């Protein structure tokens, strides 16, 4: 009887500790991980994404149209990042007559605009116009004029280097940052643009400059055209008594700032410009009013070349600085009125480069009409949309792939529901964006790619994705073993006796006389 009690006691120990306790402990210490679509993430092929776009060739006769279309198709055949859907049309007689008789290219543009819809995104028209001085002419709308069939090679070069720029698109899609990507700001939903007027000697000179109106009008009109891409917040401020030693050397005609001092000017500006107030990246545009004793200050020596109309420089991913040099007469009167048009024009040119509109190098036989307004050209907007769509898509895929790899490698990171939801949203948006890009639906493609990018970033940068600190595996066992081993030891040893008793055999050998 006593033996039965003992055996039941040890059986209950075994039951609680091993049968109930062990699975309970395993279940309660496992890390909560939501199931992720690993197979879909591994199936991403970033290098195979491409954008379709529509191109219409309008010529006076059939033969020209065919030849131009054929040349363009041949040139863009190997490009795997952009696929052109080329349609050929003959220009209707009335329009042809208008194009031949009108003297000014702008009027010709209006005539074409009246006949065809050039406001539609992701389209481009290559139109023949006999009375052209050059082979090809490109303006601010989505139209390029060409003279005749001999201009084919120039048309192809213009499309490659100016309008579509497949090299820049490939750079946006790849993992390595190319030169254009190193200059422009990283993709994001919004930016702050801060115009700082830096006035080191307010006691000596009065500056007449309405910074708020200047940034609202000039930069505002520019960013209004880019609302589909990013959200811009415009701010302006005055920074007084911000002195800086340029280590300027005297040259005939003025002074030249030391080249090594210019990066340090940016550091000095950063100290006071207070651009860390928000979590959005900030584009700094600084107008530095050069003190009278240093004016006119140049950035480098211009011995033989003609100096540019304004001294300015920019720094990639930071912003730009323009020097305002007061003339000796203005220094006499102690009132300086900076030329607003020129200065804001310089800022705009820097802003364009910082946002991704690249410089267009001159092509033989082609003329790119100079931009005379604040707003960007229509086809530049399309190029930006394509660029950002591809870059955001590629970045989202890279983030998801590395997140999946990371979560696979480090097994004690908790994956909660929000992270799972973000990842699923990102995967779905990537699929939709890819579909829209292939269908040449650029605005929708950009919208979905931005959603995918933001969801992937949210998932990767989720604060809860911290590996469980102070709980690595070897330390886990170092805690459990001294805690549980002394208890488990007699329990395990008594298992043998327990089994024997259950089978009905006597536990102790009976003493025989």
């Amino acid at each position, binding site marked *: 009887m006593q033996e039965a009690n003992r055996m039941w006691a040890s059986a209950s120990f075994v039951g609680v500790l091993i049968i109930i306790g062990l699975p309970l402990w395993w279940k309660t210490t496992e890390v909560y991980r939501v199931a992720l679509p690993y197979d879909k993430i591994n199936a991403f092929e970033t290098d195979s994404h491409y954008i379709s776009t529509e191109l219409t060739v309008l010529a006076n006769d059939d033969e020209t149209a065919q030849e131009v279309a054929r040349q363009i198709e041949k040139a863009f055949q190997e490009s795997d990042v952009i696929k052109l859907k080329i349609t050929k049309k003959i220009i209707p007689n009335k329009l042809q007559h208008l194009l031949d008789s009108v003297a000014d290219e702008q009027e010709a543009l209006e005539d074409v605009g009246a006949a065809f819809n050039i406001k539609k995104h992701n389209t481009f028209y290559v139109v023949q116009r006999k009375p052209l001085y050059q082979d090809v002419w490109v303006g601010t709308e989505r139209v390029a004029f060409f003279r005749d069939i001999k201009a084919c090679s120039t048309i192809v070069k213009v499309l490659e280097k100016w309008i579509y720029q497949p090299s820049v698109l490939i750079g946006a899609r790849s993992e390595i940052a190319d030169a254009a990507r190193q200059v422009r700001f990283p993709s994001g939903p919004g930016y702050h643009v801060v115009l700082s007027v830096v006035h080191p000697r307010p006691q000596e000179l009065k500056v007449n400059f309405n910074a708020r109106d200047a940034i609202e009008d000039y930069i505002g009109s520019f960013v209004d055209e880019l609302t589909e891409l990013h959200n811009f917040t415009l701010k302006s401020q005055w920074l007084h008594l911000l002195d800086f030693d340029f280590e300027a050397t005297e040259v005939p005609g003025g002074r030249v700032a030391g080249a090594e001092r210019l990066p340090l000017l940016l550091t000095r500006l950063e100290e006071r410009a207070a651009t860390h107030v928000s*979590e959005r990246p900030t584009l700094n545009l600084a107008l530095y009013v050069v003190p009278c004793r240093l004016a006119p200050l140049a950035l480098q020596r211009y011995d033989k070349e003609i100096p540019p109309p304004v001294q300015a420089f920019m720094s990639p991913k930071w912003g730009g600085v323009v020097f305002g040099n007061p003339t000796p007469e203005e220094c006499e009167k102690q009132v300086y009125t900076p030329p607003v048009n020129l200065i804001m024009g310089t800022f*705009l040119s820097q802003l364009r480069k910082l946002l991704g509109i690249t410089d267009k190098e001159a092509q033989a036989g082609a003329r790119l009409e100079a931009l*005379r307004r604040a707003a960007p050209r229509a086809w530049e907007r399309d190029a930006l949309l394509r660029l950002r769509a591809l870059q955001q898509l590629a970045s989202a895929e890279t983030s998801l792939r590395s997140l999946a790899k990371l979560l696979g490698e480090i097994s004690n990171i908790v994956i909660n529901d929000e992270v799972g939801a973000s990842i699923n949203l990102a995967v779905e948006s990537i699929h939709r964006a890819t579909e829209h890009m292939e269908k040449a639906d650029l605005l929708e493609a950009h919208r979905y790619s931005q959603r995918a990018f933001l969801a992937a970033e949210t998932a990767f940068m989720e604060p809860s994705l911290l590996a469980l600190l102070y709980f690595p595996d070897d330390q886990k066992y170092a805690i459990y073993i001294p805690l549980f081993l002394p208890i488990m030891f007699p329990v395990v040893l008594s298992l043998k006796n327990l089994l024997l008793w259950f089978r009905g055999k006597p536990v102790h050998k009976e003493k025989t006389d």
Partner: protein
Amino acid sequence: MSLYYVYFIFTFLVTIKISNAIEIPEKFQKSNHTNNWAVLVDTSRFWFNYRHVANVLSIYRSVKRLGIPDSQIILMISDDMACNPRNPRPATIFNNAHEQINVYGDDVEVDYRGYEVSVENFVRLLTGRVPPDTPRSKRLLTDEGSNILIYLTGHGGDGFLKFQDSEEITSQELADALEQMWQKRRYNEIFFIIDTCQASSMYEKFYSPNILATASSLVGEDSLSHHVDSAIGVYIIDRYTYYVLEFLENVHPNSKKTMSEFLAVCPKSACLSTVGVRRDLFKRDPSKVPITDFFGSVRQIIITTDPIDIQEIPKRKKPMSINKTKVPEKREYLPQFPMHLVKTTV
């Protein structure tokens, strides 16, 4: 016969000289980083650990002098020595008994201070998983072209670094954090310096590429402090950092010194502990990497030559503001006793 030997040695030396002269343009291997960041961490608190704060502030001053802007330096200091009531020289921190340079200065920008310096915050800073309301100055906003200098100092042991006298970061966690940075392409190259006891154990577990690591002592050795300042009453600076600073004093922004000179900076006779180096994860040859790749700052300047000539002055349409009729604000006193809220019982 001897003349023949002399002639032979002479030609041999001349050939060596010429081949050296031809080699000079190849001296530095090109780096492709576009910006420089520094993460400087002091992990120990209490007055007797004054030297750790002096260590990290001295490196901060050197790095600032060589050009890295404050917006790209993350400085984490666990305890306030300058305003410590036991400091006989208030508002100053010195790294030398001669007390010539006040490394605290009046323009120091400490990003994480006091109890904010914890293992969790450090790992969050490195991996970027900071809470969403963290200001930009407390985030490590690096990208794929950033070279980062990471400097850790404090008390350490075999496989761990002590934070705030109450918690530790293990070498495995640090290695995992750096791997997460690599996966997100948050750095181009990292130079990792650690000045604690048994410091080399902290970099043994690294497995991400492009990291060059150096430590002030090997496993089983202690890093020692340099000298005491009897006026302040504590040890002022550690040996390894003292000799590093001596080296950095001769480095200016156009310096041609290489990383391998930095890695050899403290021989055992001076440091009394052996300096450890880990270079197998670093692709370039340290003897061809200029020291300004990590200690200086690259900031590209592009001169603008093509301003836009705006003909028509733009005018942005202001959004229509709703006409708000100004209601005159009526002000009155609240009743002294809120009897109107009390239900009167009959």
